[in-house]
Structures are given as C-alpha cells and as structure tokens.
C-alpha cells in the first residue's frame, strides 16, 4: 500500500491503509482477488472531509489522490462506516437515508460492490481485524 501524504490527521486514509496492509499480510488470497476486481476500475472514496482514490497497482493496492479517471465515487463518513461494520445499519438503509452515496454506471457499481464484498470477506478473516474495528470505532467517535 502506498500513501502520498501524511496520515496523522487523515483517519480514513490511515485506517484504509492499515486494512489493506492487513489484507496483504493475513489474507493474501483476498488481496489478490481484490486487485483483480479493481484492475479495471479506479474508485474514489470521500469520507467526511477526506478524499482518496483506491486502485490496483503492481504488487498490491494503492491509496492515491482522487483519480480523474475514477468511474465510481463513494461518499460516506466514519460514523456510518462503523455503524455498518457494527451491524447497526445495513448498506441498503445507509443508501436510503443518504448516509452512503455511490455513483457510477450500473456495471461499474456492480464491480465496486464485488470489490467491497471481497475486501470485507478478507478483513473478517484477518486475526487483526478486531483491532482494526476498535480503531475505526475510536476514530468515528472523534470525527
């Protein structure tokens, strides 16, 4: 995972970077699957006031600045991300209530959903996943 700016005050970038690192270390099959899924699709993610890009790169996944070529843009906040992973909110409810917004063509959104599924399936298989969830909980309270 590469990151192009300081992560100190960028919790979404820091947490996503840690999650992708964990995936590479503890669930490499899912990292490879995710790279394959995102190979042809750059995704921009806006979390609270942070904007970042996620794309497949040589040897792994990269967090970059938002890409002009991104065909899918996702907007949410850390509190919503934590509520989803804490099972207090479903993705459908988050979309309906405007807490999660995903833009793109139907085909590209389907690929992005596939990538999200692979990412989460990998994370739940990582022994360090519980610590990452606790870090997200702390960050969501501070955001």
């Amino acid at each position, binding site marked *: 995972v590469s990151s192009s700016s300081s992560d100190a005050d960028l919790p979404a970038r820091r947490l996503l970077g840690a999650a992708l690192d964990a995936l590479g270390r503890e669930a490499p099959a899912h990292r490879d699957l995710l790279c394959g899924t995102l190979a042809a699709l750059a995704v921009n993610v806006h979390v609270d006031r942070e904007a970042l890009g996620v794309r497949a790169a040589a040897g792994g996944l990269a967090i970059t600045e938002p890409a002009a070529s991104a065909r899918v843009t996702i907007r949410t906040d850390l509190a919503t991300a934590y509520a989803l992973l804490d099972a207090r909110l479903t993705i459908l409810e988050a979309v309906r209530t405007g807490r999660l917004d995903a833009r793109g063509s139907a085909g590209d959104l389907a690929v992005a959903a596939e990538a999200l599924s692979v990412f989460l*399936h990998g994370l739940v298989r990582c022994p360090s996943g519980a610590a990452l969830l606790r870090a997200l909980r702390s960050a969501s309270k501070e955001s």
Partner: protein
Amino acid sequence: MTGVADQLDPARDDFWRVRSPAATSVPFKEWQHFIVLAPGLDLILNFNLSSSSGLGEPHDRLGRVIALARTSRWTGIVDAASRPELSRDGCRARFGDHRVEIRTTGYRVVVEAPADGIVADLTLRPMAVPITARRQALAPGRRLDWTLTARLAVDGEVELGDRTFALVDAVGYHDHNWGHFAWGDDFTWEWCCVLPTDRAADWAVVYSNLMNGARTHLALEQLFVWRSGLNVLAAGGLDVSAHAEGRHRARPELRLPRPMAVVQPRIDSDVPRRLEVSARSGADHVALGFAPESLVQLLVPSELAPRGVVVINEVVGPVELAGRIAGQTIAGEGRGVFELVRR
C-alpha cells in the same frame, strides 16, 4: 449423585489437547463449550482455539471467546485473542481477559467483557458420567474428538449490563472438541442438549447428527439420556428418528461477529418451527419435542471459499420430554439449546 461425582476428574480427562496426535496439514481446532440454564437466563460460553496448520503450534494459535446470553433479549461477544495462553498440563487457559480452569472437581470459567455488558465467574461441577466419541469422521479426512458431560451443577455470578444473576445449583452442560477440519468442509451438524426446568428432576438428554453440507446424507444420528448421573439410554442409527416441521420465521436476534452481518446480509436461518426426535433401545424409548423460541447466529468465514460463510444457529426454547426407561416413566418440561449448522 455423589457416587457418580466421585468418579469424575476433569483435570485427568478433559484437559486442552492443543494438538492432535494425527498432525496433518488440515487446520487444527479445539474448543471447550459451556451452557448454563437458570430461570430467566440462557448462557452459552465457548473458549475456542484454531490453527491454520494441523500442528496447533503456539505462534499459529488464534483464540476466540464466544459469550451469548439471553434474558429478555440476547447480548453477546466474539472476542479474539491472538495469543491465548495455556499451561503445560492443559488445565489452565487465558484468552485475553477471559479464563477457563480445568480442575479435579470441575471447571471455573471467567468471562470479563464489562464494556460489552457481560461478566461471568462460574464454577461447574460434573453431575453425570461423561461420554467420549473418538475421531468421529466429519468429512473425508476430517476427524473430531468429542467428549461431553451432559449435566453439571453451576454456582457463581453473571452480570449482564445492570442485571446480576446469582446462581446456586443451576444446571449446565459441557463439551470439549478437538480435531482437524476446515470450516466450509462438506459437513453440517445438528446438536442439542436438554436439561429439566425443574431442578429436582434428574435427567439430561443430548441429541446429535452429522450430515453432509447439503444435508442429503446422514452419516450419524444419536441420542443419549442420563438419569441420576448415569447414562441410561444410548441409541443410534435407525433407532433414532428426527422430524422437522415448518420454518421458524423470526429473525435472528443477534448475528456475530458483527462485521460478518455485512458480508452475509441474508438472514434466512433455515431453522424449523418444531423439531421432534424419538429414540428407542430395546423396550426403552423417549421422545422430545422442541419449539424454537429465539436464536442467534454465529457467522463463520469459510476457510475454503473466499466468500463462503458457515452459519451456526444457536436456538433456545422449551422442550417436552416423555418416555419410559428401565420400567420407569421419564417425563417433564425442559429447556433446550440446539445448534444447527448450515453451509
């Protein structure tokens, strides 16, 4: 039951194995499982070890403590401990803040999760002769040892949020499993323990079956009954029959670990509305009827399929028991904890 209790020694028989003599490349798993039933409380506690390899080496052990408690609603945790600690004799284990001790006289189980509203400190004394099934075949090349104590007396305290349960001579169940398999292998099981609601009643019942993942092939089905601590009925094969009716429509009240609910949004629990099991051995016979009241789901990531999930339904509810064993009627109301694995 004093005579029976005198023969029991968990420290001699029920210590953590940590590895199986048949070390293989198939993942090793082991768990100590406890159930406590008291008026207004159903409690399920599980101390669980898993290794990615078959050897169960210390650097490769992941511990998990599962605590599920039901009062008017379910609360629960699945707490991972990356470095579970075990004593050399296999009788003491610490999983993060949680502990289990296996003693000559029984078990001490401590769960410390105040932030999640669950604290328990319990001692469990065996009140029934244990039985052990060695190296049961779960699936081709997959084996599981299973030893169970169908009834224990439980003392201690359980704090669930702002409620405290002081337990004196509550009833409990314990089993210990170890072996080699991967979640996602071609098997499922259905298992239950039933204990009497009236603590003066002296019986306990355990039923289990093993099937393939599609549940089209029944590899094993058995039912055991204990009275006064002694195993008085053991039936299997065609002497046991189970009949499931309808479908329990209520949603799971809790799905753990919580992040798994995102990856497995489908909540179909595939739990029957009613389950009836009967068994006979010679002139002895028993029948039990279970009516699921509520359930929680444990969602286990498949170790074989990148996006596979194995669903373990923990279902509680009332059970009616009726039968006749050794010329004596056995009958009464009980409470059952059923574990229905779906793949």
